[in-house]
């Protein structure tokens, strides 16, 4: 179902490209080198924001679950960030950039109708006795691949909050800003995300037994 939309998107992109070509052809003579002020702004932007590229890529990668999409989104996010950079006067460049990466990722997910954050299968269909006990789950705690799979299976809003907390080590306050939710919601959403992860692990480990 995602395929036709992808084509639609590609068609739009091509359209833009062709009109851009016409424009460039018309005004070729007027093309000029970027001036010193622009160069300076770009240098300052790169100095502030490029160090956060790993954080940006990691968040996008978890949200999109696909390397190529993640790179496209990060590139797009950097462009958007650069355009709004004159409005950035804060000290937390990482949180600012991650907000943009997050929004760009969701725009991308919506465009591709891959909005999975409302369609998560709330019921994992496993018989009660197939669920592993918490102790068994912990024995599998070392099983990195299983935990990665479990996290990948969660809805976007849960993948996002787990990545921000566990991988970026951000505070609840920063998470609230980036995910654009009230600070009071961060704890309950994290609790739900971890609970779902635990459920998924319990179901998977229970089945393997």
């Amino acid at each position, binding site marked *: 179902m995602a395929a036709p939309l992808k084509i639609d998107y590609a068609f*739009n992109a091509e359209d*833009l490209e062709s*009109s851009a070509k016409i*424009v*460039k052809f*018309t*005004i070729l003579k*007027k093309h*000029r080198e*970027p001036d010193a002020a*622009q160069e300076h702004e*770009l240098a300052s*932007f790169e100095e502030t924001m*490029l160090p956060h*590229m*790993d954080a940006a*890529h*990691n968040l996008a990668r978890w949200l999109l679950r696909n*390397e190529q999409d*993640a*790179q496209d989104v*990060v*590139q797009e996010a*950097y*462009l*958007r960030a*650069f*355009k*709004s950079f004159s*409005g*950035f*006067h*804060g*000290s*937390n460049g990482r*949180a600012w950039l991650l907000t*943009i990466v997050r*929004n760009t990722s969701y*725009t991308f997910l919506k465009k591709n109708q891959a909005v999975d954050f409302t369609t998560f299968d709330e019921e994992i269909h496993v018989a009660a006795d197939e669920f592993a006990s918490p102790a068994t*789950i*912990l024995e599998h*705690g*070392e*099983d*990195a691949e*299983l935990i*990665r799979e479990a*996290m990948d299976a969660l809805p976007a809003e849960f993948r996002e909050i787990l990545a921000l*907390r*566990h*991988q970026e080590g951000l*505070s*609840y306050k920063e998470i609230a*800003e980036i995910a654009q939710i009230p600070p009071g919601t961060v*704890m309950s959403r*994290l*609790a739900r995300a*971890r609970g779902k*992860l*635990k459920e998924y692990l319990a179901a998977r480990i229970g089945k393997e037994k």
Partner: protein
Amino acid sequence: MNCEEAAKLMDGYLDGELDPITSQTIEQHLLECPKCDQAYKIHGSLIRAIGNATPYYKAPAELRERIQSSLRDEIADLPTRNVAQDTQALFPRREPRPRAILWETSWNWLALAAAIIFAAIIAFTFVPRLQRPGADQFLATQLIASHVRSLMANHLTDVASSDQHTVKPWLDTKLDFAPPVVDLSSEGFPLIGGRLDYLDNRPVAALVYQRRKHFINLFIWPGETGAARPTMAMSHEGYQLLHWADPDFNYWAVSDANANDLQTFKQQFEAQTSHH
């Protein structure tokens, strides 16, 4: 605290995001409730496992080049885009730009507005922390501020009494620890009263003594067990600070009395408390 509340606060506690008072209440509950204690331990292991087991996807090297080159294109394109809009006006029959562009523009403005508000909040929250001096210096500043405020705002004491047997029970009911309280009138430091304060991220007891025309605030809170620290005297912004610790408590005396008076005060206070 009951089990239901403890369960609700579990993630906040394990992430170290609760205020110290709530955290202490939880710890108290866990001591009394093996069931909750077990649940906390298991959830704690899961939280650590998530952190350890999930991969951190670092950006590949070529992404950096891609981004840098697209940014270079962006600034090189800026002037041409302006001209492009002019060109469009000259040829009104040209196809209108796709709606997506309009939509993206408004998105950018929203993002810009959100980013400005966000940046301001972050700046106000974090900049003061970055300027934090050494821990003791920072605490000293807090202590002096509290001392000055107590003299300024007509809020020297919450319980005004020269009777240690009035002050001590009052403090004991308000705090989760029982600070030593002694009257030192015969030593020239009459007890004026007691007060609650909030320092170093925790509630503390403040005892107020008088030395001639000067007041001494003695701040007391539990220290790390058995960690007796050497006495430390500091002078800061014209105030004298004297810090010592015994196996149970941290003490900070703050006053505008002179340093010798403060030393005498400490000796008398220690002599009296050791009798109790």
